[in-house]
């Protein structure tokens, strides 16, 4: 059950998102209502495999580019950027 006292706050493209501990950055991006990347021909993309092999979930996390957001857990104050 969600526990507000234990929740983590992070920002996705500047918008604050509150998630439970153990939430992946990929899930937080979808919760924020966005997608993760724009493809080379301009399509919006979001996670496909959920296990770190398809690279569709890559995003900028804490200033580091091209991070696979499905493999990284949210931490307090994290700054996540997507196109």
């Amino acid at each position, binding site marked *: 059950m969600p526990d507000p006292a234990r929740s983590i706050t992070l920002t996705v493209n500047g918008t604050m998102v509150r998630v439970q501990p153990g*939430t*992946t950055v990929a899930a937080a991006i979808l919760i924020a209502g966005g997608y993760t990347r724009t493809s080379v021909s301009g399509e*919006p*993309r979001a996670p*496909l495999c*959920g*296990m770190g092999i398809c690279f569709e979930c890559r995003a900028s996390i804490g200033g580091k580019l091209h991070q696979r957001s499905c*493999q990284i857990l*949210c931490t307090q104050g994290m700054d996540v950027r997507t196109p």
Partner: protein
Amino acid sequence: MKKAFDVVVAGAGPAGIAAAVTAAAQHRRVALVDDNQRPGGQIWRSGASLPRPARVWLSRLEASAVEHLSGTRIFDHPAPGVLCAEWNETAMELHYEKLVFATGARELFLPFPGWTLPNVMGAGGLDAMVRGGLPVAGKRVVVAGTGPLLLAVAAHLAARGAKIVAICEQAPFARLAKFAAQMSRYPGKLLQGLAYRLAARHSRLYCGCWPISASGSTALESLTLRQGNRTWSVACDYLACGFHLVPNLELAELLGCRIQDGFVAVDDLQQTSVANVYCAGEPTGIGGVEMALVEGQIAGLAASGSAEAARKLIPQRRRMLGFVDALRRTCALNPELRRPAADTTLVCRCEDVPFGTLREHTSWRDAKLHTRCGMGPCQGRICGAAAEFLFGWGPDAVRPPIFPALVSSLAAESTNPNKSMEDA
């Protein structure tokens, strides 16, 4: 950074955990290396109640002397006995006497119009996202593809409050019935299957059925399904679609292990064709958790020089081979699944290469050289298996780095096998 172990185990799923724990119990210095942050692989993901074998093996791992190197990606094998890996942007050289790789499997994704839309995911893919915190309560989900994973995913998502609109299994009903009959030899699996079906009992299961297109403006909104000559559309928020599993063979190929009929060839003690290298779990044949645990224990014992103890487990493994075979026959893909891809349907999602462009080529290598298909960040992990099914193209040779690595990690890698990173 340089670390040396008696046994290095690559992959912390059930097979890798069993191998590492078993080898450590034989007083070997063991490292368990995995890309993920938490042990358990794809099947024992936390975030939900775990089955008993998972709790047992994870607590054994916790209590063991195994050094768990999580978040660590192996990208090269420069010389026998050495692996290069990257952890937290730091290059690492792992030296081993014996190597057990248990690199698991990934889902097979088949392209159809609209499959690149956000919220079209793998069956295990959506399941993993939900275990990673994505809420699906009240969401309309279609689960499609093939294999026992579909029922497991439908059951889990239903338990999380999702409305499972349909479960579409490509295999015909007769084949599923035969599979269920064969499962009388594996009552545990039969009961598990029934429990999953019961958990998602309010959802209709369609056999010989699959999605032929997905549509939506910025994300999935509706899906067209086909069963025989009938096609119809359903509104949905997510599609969880995977056509069973294909083994992760990149490391096996880099090591030079013999591959037979798409799987790593091993002997009774899980020894590959390469000296001091063992393989356990899905890369030797898709057989599920029980098989992986037995193979992991055999490999862990064999890699610790306890061949006698390892041999005692061989009958257990042999008993499971029937399941592997039944699963393979049941999940065999209907050739009609090649038809949904249109000329404009993207096959390679990294480089956005459409089906029509690929069709002009004669081999995977030819397609790669001319279209960049399979040359993006995933290195063909998604489109390679799809192209194999669509065009019958065999895989190309694997070259290091087998996973995208930082230039600094590549630079740290010693070119002379006698020279370590510390000397460099």
